[in-house]
């Protein structure tokens, strides 16, 4: 089953639930606004996830230093064996 089909089925199920709510328990005015609340909450959740992820974005400054060491070591080795590493 394609992913989009899965998502559409989920959407249909949630919509059916919402329509059910419209007809019965919840006062009409609130029920009509539920989709709006849902979308806004989803948006907020997304922004929160981006923010949290940004705060905890793993960084590795020490890797840049190690890389420079590796580059120097590689250039040394290759130069001795006739590989042209003087290009910059």
């Amino acid at each position, binding site marked *: 089953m394609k992913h989009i089909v899965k998502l559409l089925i989920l959407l249909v199920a949630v919509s059916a639930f919402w329509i059910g709510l419209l007809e019965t328990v919840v006062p009409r005015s609130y029920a009509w606004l539920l989709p709006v609340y849902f979308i806004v909450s989803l948006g907020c959740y997304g922004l929160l996830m981006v923010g949290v992820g940004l705060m905890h974005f793993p960084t590795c400054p020490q890797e840049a230093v190690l890389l420079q060491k590796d580059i120097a070591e*590689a250039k040394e080795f290759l130069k001795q*064996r006739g*590989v042209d590493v003087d290009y910059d």
Partner: protein
Amino acid sequence: MEINKNKYSIIVPTYNERLNIALLVYLVFKHLRDVDFEIIVVDDGSPDGTQEVVKQLQQVYGEDRILLRARPRKLGLGTAYVHGLKHASGNFVVIMDADLSHHPKYLPSFIRKQLETGASIVTGTRYVKGGGVHGWNLMRKLTSRGANVLAQTLLWPGVSDLTGSFRLYRKSVLEDVISSCVSKGYVFQMEMIVRASRKRYHIEEVPITFVDRVYGSSKLGGSEIVEYLKGLAYLLVST
């Protein structure tokens, strides 16, 4: 410890990576002792002499360990992998960038993970503990994170790093997945891993660090966001 009888074909597409390819090859040989592997350089007609440097490297390390399978001009990343695959004699294939943002020191951890779990695909992730990036400004981190959240919400891909391209594949799995992918550029990387996930291949992740390239110029350009959104939409409906 059991001897690893697998052979690993490392496919490296290059365009104007004259210095980086030499450094990369040195580091691969340094970190993969006691492993049977070959490096397949798919160069798209680089004008800076990349192929000459590869030939010098062949003199040092042997033509059976370093294969140069060039193409006449820039023909795209996806087809570069397909081209490399045709010449791969290993039963596993590693794809990685030539610019040292993918450090060969992680190759043993990819191999170890695959041996431990029997996975069909091991993908490197920059976004978990033990992984990371360096050289990214706030804007780049923001777009990366935003793109990732969007993709996770829409696609449920089952991996934490969708656009990464440092991966180990069982050769037969790569052949299967690549034949059904049509995107270009980094969306192609996303399509590969999403299709693999949909086909229920066993995928494992290992943390990797990604240091922004030191030498040469990045192939990453301008209208990325639009391309990315188009790619997401395509993946949403076709996978």
